[in-house]
């Protein structure tokens, strides 16, 4: 499949950047004329992945988060969110709804939300090296 547009950016893993990250992705995707609900699904999923990198990947100690957004033919959007944090030992277990290593204020729902709000999610991770989450969604074509 042919990539027709692409943007890359990185930013420090601070919680004050969560709004920036989902806002930047959503601004880039606007060119596809998504519905309000598609945009909200994407913003929510990006917020989940970025929060995970900050809270779990870097354990709140900071680091860099890298995001690549690609637009492919047929209105397919791919968003890659990468950290160089601690990595995930058992990805399958981490993705189970309600599973969390994050304590009382985490709901354990981040992966469940990404799975439900996007068309596909791929997670790769290496202990001590970091985690990459790739989210894909097809935007419905709003034919005039």
């Amino acid at each position, binding site marked *: 499949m042919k990539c027709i547009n692409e943007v890359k950016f990185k930013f420090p893993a601070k919680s004050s950047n969560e709004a920036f990250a989902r806002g930047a992705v959503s601004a880039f995707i606007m060119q596809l004329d998504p519905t309000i609900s598609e945009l*909200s699904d994407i913003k*929510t999923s990006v*917020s989940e992945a970025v929060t995970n990198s*900050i809270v779990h990947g870097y354990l709140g100690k900071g680091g860099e988060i890298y995001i690549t957004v690609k637009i492919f033919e047929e209105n397919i959007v791919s968003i890659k969110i990468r950290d160089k944090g601690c990595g995930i030992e058992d990805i399958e277990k981490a993705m189970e709804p309600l599973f969390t290593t994050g304590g009382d204020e*985490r709901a354990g729902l981040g992966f469940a*939300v990404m799975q*439900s709000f996007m068309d596909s999610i791929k997670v790769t991770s290496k202990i001590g090296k970091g985690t990459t989450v790739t989210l894909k969604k097809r935007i419905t074509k709003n034919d005039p």
Partner: protein
Amino acid sequence: MLELEFNNSVLTAHLSGELDHHSAAVIRKKIDSKTEALKPKTLKLDYKDVQFMDSSGIGLIMGRYRQMSLIGGNVEVTNVPPHLKRMFSLSGIDTLGVMK
């Protein structure tokens, strides 16, 4: 982002704007310090004006549910707008009996 109101042992928290891990941490601290001081019977979380929310908005409810249980109080969640319904149903939070 947060307005607190205390009336007849009910502490109402009107939430507004974007609810993510960053803003939820600020909101949680404010609610918890008020709860500690006032010891309300009920903590009402009003979601009416929440424009955006990720799963931190659910974590906020679960955390307050635990806090209120400790002082023998309960939590009520009110006015969840239509655009947040999918997140709420996915979370299964209704099994806590807090949805009003």
